[in-house]
């Protein structure tokens, strides 16, 4: 097998891309300078009362920027489409875009459906009016689909833990020394210092992030909302106490906390299990209060609903916190949990402690945001109206204040997933929590950085992957903020 070059037989596109990128950069600089130096476009008032403006020099710079950007996008699309069609004969880029085929298909379907029905989809649909939001959403969904399909073994070319002898630190596009039946013949992004496939590890790493980050952020939001609403609404002693606790955790350097919490010794003492048992109660409390405050006037409907919902929630809760029949299982003592035949899923101690500490670090910030919003909104007229109607405090908090605070909360949710991703990467970077062979991005960057002055390829793909996912989340949050302000 021949080693692959980056672009293979579509190399003729490279000079075109270079020209397009150069044109884009030049027109960008001209555009910025033009907006400072050039005069505003002249506006003339017509006889019929309408206003028309000529394009002027500014319009010209803007047009140049738009066309060069379109050319860049078109060329990038050409690389991907040709890659999908030609596969490995289009070099590494072609092979990679062919491997990502399911992701491209899902993205195209998702975007086509969303744009077609965007007027019926509320805030989500409005996202497709803002280019920034669309780019962000595209980046995020790219990694979400990569994570999901990667977990289904669709994208990866090799097992992320397999070591192939002779492939140690090999550059991207190196063929395997001997190819078995049905085996992919190249390491597309090269091999790392243990001769594993960098590409497959990067794809598998996406799944770890996609699994943990949104879920951990959601739990942090549940905790923050359940505590922040009463703190802001009631104020007084409760507020002072909870705010002190939140400030206490916020004053703690995150890395020190991770170093203290996320160690095998602490896992052995069962501290993370206690924390999980406490933190994961909040979603159940939230659900129970949410439903009860709304439907308590109709007990015949409320009681079966609560029994059903809370039953399922409790079952999930117990299977989440109990492992192998125990909630806490240390050398000296154990607390019985759900028996194994009822246990839906087991979470290994390493993952659980990562999850718990990320929730723990994030929830005080959410608490502060929710508290601030509640303080602001509780002075509104509709809250006073609800109080006059005789609604209970929890109804007002959860069904009057919370829905009206949703805009900032959704935006913060997106930003916070990005921050959680960064935190997970930090944990991996310091080798905390996750097992050392785990393909998550932080650990891979940490391993790759040691040889960085000679071999770039093991560290750069996960670094760029993390960068693009967090950037996507930030852009998405920006687009959402812009669109929600337009209401």
């Amino acid at each position, binding site marked *: 097998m021949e080693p692959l070059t980056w672009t293979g037989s579509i190399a003729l596109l490279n000079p075109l891309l270079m020209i397009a990128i150069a044109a884009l950069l030049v027109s960008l600089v001209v*555009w910025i300078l033009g907006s400072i130096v050039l005069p505003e476009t002249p506006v003339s008032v017509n006889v019929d009362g309408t206003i028309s403006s000529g394009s002027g020099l500014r319009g010209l710079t803007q047009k140049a920027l738009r066309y060069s950007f379109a050319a860049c996008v078109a060329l990038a699309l050409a690389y991907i489409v040709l890659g999908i069609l030609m596969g490995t004969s289009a070099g590494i880029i072609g092979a990679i875009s062919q491997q990502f085929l399911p992701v491209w298909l899902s993205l195209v379907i998702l975007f086509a459906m969303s744009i077609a029905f965007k007027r019926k989809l509320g805030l989500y649909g409005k996202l497709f009016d803002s280019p920034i939001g669309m780019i962000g959403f595209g980046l995020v969904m790219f990694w979400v689909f990569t994570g999901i399909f990667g977990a289904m073994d669709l994208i990866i070319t090799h097992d992320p833990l397999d070591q192939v002898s002779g492939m140690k630190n090999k550059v991207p596009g190196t063929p395997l020394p001997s190819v078995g039946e049905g085996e992919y013949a190249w390491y597309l992004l090269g091999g790392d210092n243990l001769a594993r496939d960098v590409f497959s590890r990067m794809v598998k790493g996406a799944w770890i992030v996609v699994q943990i980050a949104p879920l951990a952020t959601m739990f942090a939001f549940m905790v923050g909302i359940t505590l922040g609403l009463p703190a802001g609404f009631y104020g007084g002693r409760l507020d002072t106490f909870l705010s002190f606790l939140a400030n206490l955790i916020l004053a703690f*350097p995150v*890395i020190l906390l991770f170093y203290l919490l996320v160690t095998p010794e602490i896992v052995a003492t069962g501290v993370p299990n206690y924390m999980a048992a406490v933190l994961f109660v909040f979603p159940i409390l939230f659900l129970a209060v949410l439903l009860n405050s709304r439907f308590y006037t109709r007990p015949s409907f409320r009681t079966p609903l609560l029994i059903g919902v809370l039953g399922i929630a409790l079952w999930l809760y117990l299977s989440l916190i109990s492992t192998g029949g125990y909630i806490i299982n240390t050398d000296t003592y154990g607390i019985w949990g759900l028996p194994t035949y009822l246990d839906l899923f087991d979470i290994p101690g390493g993952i659980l402690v990562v999850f718990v500490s990320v929730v723990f670090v994030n929830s005080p910030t959410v608490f502060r945001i929710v508290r601030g919003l509640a303080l602001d909104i509780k002075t509104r007229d509709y809250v006073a109206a609800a109080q006059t109607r005789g609604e209970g405090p929890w109804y007002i908090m959860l069904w009057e204040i919370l829905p009206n605070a949703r805009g900032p909360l959704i935006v913060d949710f997106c930003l916070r997933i990005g921050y959680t991703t960064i935190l997970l990467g930090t944990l991996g970077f310091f080798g905390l929590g996750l097992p050392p062979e785990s393909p998550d991005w932080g650990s891979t960057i940490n391993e*790759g950085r040691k040889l*960085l002055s000679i071999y*770039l390829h093991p560290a*750069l793909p996960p*670094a760029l992957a993390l960068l693009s996912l967090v950037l996507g989340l930030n852009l998405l949050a920006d687009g959402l903020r812009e669109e929600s302000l337009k209401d």
Partner: protein
Amino acid sequence: MGLFILKRVGIMLMTALCLTFLVFFLTNLYPNLEKLAKTQGNFRMSDEQVESYLEKNGYLQPMPVKYGEWLGVLPSYRHTNEDGTVLGRCILPGQSAEDAPRFCGILQGYWGYSTVFKQEVSTVVGTRLGLTGRLMFWVMLLMVPSALILGVLAGMKEGSATDRTLSTFAITTTATPEYVSGVIFIAIFTSSAVGLKWFKGTATQAMENPTFENFFLPVLTIALYGMGYIARMTRASMTEVMTAQYIRTARLKGVSFSNIVMKHALRNALIAPFTVIMLQFPWLLNGVVIVETLFNYKGFGWALVQAAGNNDIQLLLAISVVSVFVVLVTQLISDIGYVYLNPRIRIS
């Protein structure tokens, strides 16, 4: 104002007490002590040997007692060996038991002995803080002016070409954590694979002899991550000020745009970023730990990693006290400064 500061200092002390107790609790859990005993003695110690080592060094007392000893409000633990020699926390090597003070905690100014560095904790923290202080000084010098300039330029005309470009740049830097930007910088500017070799990939030499070549990359890496956030806050504050009534009045009066920005808008627009910069310190501490590990610069963050990795209890406690102190003091400064800068706010 005096009462306000007094109250804040009181809360600060309480927070510091709670946090150090938390660190104390976590580091003194039995598996951690066992690890400490094994790194201090040898890794093949039996359970009994571990037990006797811990007993001898006073680690097996109840938690509040040990905490009191560390604070210096309880007399510290002493252990009499079979041959009559007395061991204790206060008894430094070469000192007899009678001469040594009974109380030795942070109230007496004794921070303990670091088991990793084999030095007194105060010396370790002092030298490491000095190194990190130098790093932070240059980070601040790079980050604050450039972030403010970026933010003001972007916020001057909302929605303009400059605004959009600079905002995109700011978002990109906030989305790039230090371990990503650091790796990318090292790959581009120092590796033999790219061949630019403008800078050095490690900052170890910068500890004695900082030069532009070996010190710029770590400074840039930390500064970049914080810069985007400050720039965005400055931009938000600037756009808000630029839509204010008095700016419109000035424009209608015919004041030139540059005069409006420099004389009318800037002073009011810089109040909010001041708070943000002050509150940025705790995040910078994270950056310091990552960057010092990445560039092998043996400062405060590096010491934290070493202390936590080896369960060096005394050093960890000192480090957490210092970092909590930094966080709380910057919070206090930001509150006082905000009141000082913005006369509309009065503390009742």
